[in-house]
């Protein structure tokens, strides 16, 4: 895991070709961007929680299909310290916000118009999910749609 050894205090993570799975063990990058409600927020603000980061976009069918399960795991595990953080890639607040309201999600959704999270997390497609532990390190990086069971399996070790 050569790349994992080089993520010092700057916290930038990524690398071509390997996808998000190669990021396990690295500190999680954080950028300040707006949420759909207009408040500036970032991944760093959730330090101390286990964060299931979900990179998504409204045009991405698997992302849309995945959202009810994300909402479900968020509602079930939030009392244990889990935060689901949706990070929309490249879309406006009106588009992403309207869709999130339509689906009925309650977890925070960031708007990454410049797609910086997507590049830093080496996304090779959408959706891309990452589990970040309470200390801000990436536990797992996963490419593709997850089922509710897969989400719970992914976050459970970090929640213990």
């Amino acid at each position, binding site marked *: 895991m*050569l790349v994992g050894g080089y993520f010092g205090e700057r916290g*930038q993570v*990524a*690398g071509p070709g390997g996808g998000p799975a190669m990021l396990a063990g690295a500190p999680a990058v954080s950028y300040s961007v707006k949420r759909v409600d207009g408040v500036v927020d970032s991944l760093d603000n959730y330090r101390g929680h286990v964060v299931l980061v979900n990179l998504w976009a*409204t*045009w991405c069918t698997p992302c849309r299909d995945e959202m009810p399960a994300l909402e479900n795991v968020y509602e079930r595990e939030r009392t244990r310290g889990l935060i689901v953080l949706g990070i929309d890639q490249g879309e406006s607040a009106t588009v992403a916000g309207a869709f999130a309201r339509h689906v009925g999600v309650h977890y925070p959704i960031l708007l990454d118009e410049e797609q*910086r999270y997507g*590049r830093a997390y*080496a996304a090779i497609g959408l959706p891309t999910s990452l589990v970040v532990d309470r200390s801000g390190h990436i536990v797992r990086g996963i490419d593709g749609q997850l089922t509710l069971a897969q989400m719970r399996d992914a976050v459970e070790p970090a929640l213990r």
Partner: protein
Amino acid sequence: MTRSVALVAAVGLAVAVFAQDFFPAWPGFHTWQYAGAAAILMIAVAGYVGAASKGKDGERGYRLLLAMGGALVIGMTGLASGLLGADTLTIARAPGTVVPLPDLDAAAFFPNADAPSISQGDAEILLRRRDGSTLSVPAHGRRFVGSFALEVHPQTAAFIDARDERGDHLTVTQPTGTAFLSPVLLFPSSVQIQGQTLPADTFATPAVHRRVQAMYFSPTAGASTRVHQMVGTRAAILFAVDDESGHLVNGGLGVAADGSEALIGGIQLRPAIGSYPALVISAVPAPLPLVIGGIGLLAGLVWAFAWPRAQTPSELASALPRAT
């Protein structure tokens, strides 16, 4: 081998090897012609060393052995880096990515970029080594790490801001680029238009099911083209917007100049054109033997030509005034 020929060979050898540090990316250093020329110069120096060590060039010849030894060390160091060193490698990556560099025991951090930073084109690449130390390589700058030279060469890039007809921001993806979710085009390919070779790239806007080809026109290229709408004084991009089956959509061909917005094929496109750094890694001579050889060469030349020689008893005697 005469002294003068050996001196010319020694100095020529040093110049040829030290040139690797000044022009590290020149591919000629890794050719057989360069190695052959260096070998010939080394043979000339070695020939003189053989003769001088037998006393055939007197005391000055003995003193020059230090300089010639230094030249041979320099030559061997340069020959080794030229023959055994890796060919020059150019690494162009999307903003925000990290590239492991195992040979340097380090990783290169390509900086994040937005429209202003692409326009300014002054981003620098950060190198983080395993021991935690960092080294920044500025645009047009050069840094040395062991027997490698690192240079940053700005390359043409464009930050693409894409919106739908209502003005809502669109995700830009590059399924075939170095980063899937990057709105920064690096133009890795080229196309021929009206006899001109133009940098080209592609991206997609999946929300509106469009694939877009982008062709870069520098101000010079734009001024000499007959492409409709081309602005000759500013860099511009010619966009061709296709549907998902690869057919050009209605109104899908158009030009957007640097910083200007254009509605092309139902997408509002605003490119910020400038540059983004690529990292160029070249093998250079190992610094320690190069320094040792250089000191030997200079010290030997000074010793041989600028240092007063100790006079022999016969010379001293001849220098004394004779009694009459």
